[in-house]
């Protein structure tokens, strides 16, 4: 299947994006910021349609929107109180803006908005050109390099912010930088996986890895490996089954990996007892 150029492009971009998503996703899950990740990936949609409505390159809109919202969440948000409500309201409104831009774009382009919307929401990894794939790889490499450079202090600041702050680690600045990296990852991956599906590649490999091992470094590596595996398997599956969209196949494999990890790491007797608990009055001892 590597005879086709579009497949080679998809594998190159897909691998780079999966590595970045797996690494960033590990910290997203560890820092309990999955909802922020969700918001940033959905906001990418608004960025892309706004750029299309204004007639500029959608990639500029993607990165501008996600990084701006990442900064806003980082500056305004407070990790303890009411954070998810604020994120929720802001991003519901930004999605509403996305609808407005989509209507604006379609009235200008004469009703041809179905394709733009579908590509932004669900990705089109087999539609990437060689130049797109190379650019995606370079951006992913930059994200990975920055993340690995700050991995140790970020881990410290995540696990115990108070002690890290006392030891002179710039906890707030690291949190902000991490959100910007998350935003850049979201913008980057939207072209391939789609704004609606990307969350799976952030949450599933990382969640699976953290269920399988408690060692943070092993979990980071495992998360990246699982993300790459899901992407490869998904791309192969959708190549073999033409009706299956590639982004859905990737997310389905990632979710399957997560379910296996969940079952493998759950003691089933305990789970059965807990599941029975709510039915039988449910006071847990």
């Amino acid at each position, binding site marked *: 299947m590597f005879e086709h150029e579009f497949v080679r492009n998809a594998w190159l971009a897909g691998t780079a994006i999966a590595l970045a998503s797996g690494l960033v996703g590990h910290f997203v899950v560890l820092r309990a910021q999955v909802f922020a990740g*969700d918001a940033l990936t959905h906001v990418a949609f608004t960025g892309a349609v706004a750029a299309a409505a204004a007639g500029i390159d959608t990639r500029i809109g993607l990165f501008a929107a996600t990084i701006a919202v990442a900064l806003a969440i980082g500056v305004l948000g407070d990790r303890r109180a009411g954070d998810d409500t604020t994120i929720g309201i802001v991003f519901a409104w930004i999605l509403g803006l996305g609808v407005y831009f989509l209507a604006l774009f379609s009235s200008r382009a004469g009703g041809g908005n179905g394709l733009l919307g579908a590509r932004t929401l669900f990705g089109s990894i087999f539609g990437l050109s060689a130049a797109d794939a190379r650019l995606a790889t370079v951006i992913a490499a930059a994200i990975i390099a920055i993340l690995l450079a700050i991995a140790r202090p970020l881990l410290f600041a995540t696990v115990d912010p108070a002690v890290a702050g006392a030891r002179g680690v710039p906890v707030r600045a690291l949190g902000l930088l991490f959100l910007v990296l998350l935003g850049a990852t979201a913008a980057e991956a939207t072209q391939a996986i789609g704004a609606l599906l990307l969350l799976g590649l952030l949450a599933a490999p990382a969640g699976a890895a953290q269920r399988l091992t408690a060692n943070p470094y092993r979990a980071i590596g495992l998360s990246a490996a699982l993300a790459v595996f899901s992407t490869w398997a998904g791309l192969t599956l959708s190549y073999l089954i033409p009706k299956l969209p590639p982004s859905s196949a990737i997310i389905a494999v990632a979710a399957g990996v997560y379910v296996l990890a969940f079952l493998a790491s759950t003691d089933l007797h305990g789970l059965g007892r807990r599941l029975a608990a709510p039915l039988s009055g449910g006071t847990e001892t």
Partner: protein
Amino acid sequence: MSSSALPLAGLSLDPVSDFQQLTAFPFMVNALEAGTAVAIMAGVVGWFMVLRRESFAGHTLSLMAFPGATGALLIGLPAAAGYFVFCGASALVIGLGSSGVRRHRGEESALTGVVQALGLACGFVFLSLYQGVLAGYENLLFGDFLGITRGQVLTLAIVAVLALCGFALVGRPLLFASVDETVARARGVPVRGLALAFLLVLGLAVAATAQITGVLLVFALLVAPAATAQQITCRIGASLVLSVILGVAITWAGLALAYFYSEPVGFYITTVAFTIYVIARVTRAVIDHSTLLRRRPEIAEAHA
């Protein structure tokens, strides 16, 4: 006013003629009735959702209406059946799964994230299999209030009444369990069972709401009225009532604006909701700040 003779003459300063224009067509009456039922339910359910900090679960459940609708289309069932089946099933998975996790909050939300992405991926597969509706997927995601039938209004009203009856029955223990889980459990309140029941009602409510606002924008009606009400007052009954009133007002304003102007209804509903929230938040901050300024001498005195 001569404009009242012309149904689409635009918004005027006379509320009576505006109202007459708004209700001139049956489709608009259906939309307003359905919107009111949905807004009342979303106001109550959303109030508990914000209190329990389960916005992410609420958002995920609302997105599950998308695979529900496309899946139902694919096998030829009415879309409403798909909405309720998928939202209910996801609520069960999230509720049961996260009661098996509980190691820390990040893992719980990872599970929710996986459910969300997998559901949307399924929806996209259904959509690709059912070729030919690609033009219609936007109405699914972003709402379409023009095609609401009498039957849908009736279904929505029944669902709203059922959900409100449920809250009337378990409202007190649910409130207790939401505010202080540990004490509630010690007093013998079935905390886990209530959490699961609440997620199920949340799934039911978003499945109903998604039919009006679209899958992506349900969230605005769930979270914004409740969060605004909780900014304005911390008294339980008052903020619950306020949340319902705000929800209905936002829905009516959004529908009316979409009727008189050409932009999509989802855009107006989210924008009105967001504006009201920002006003409430800023007002609250100003009041808190001025109270602090006024009391600063007293506080300094007390510390001295």
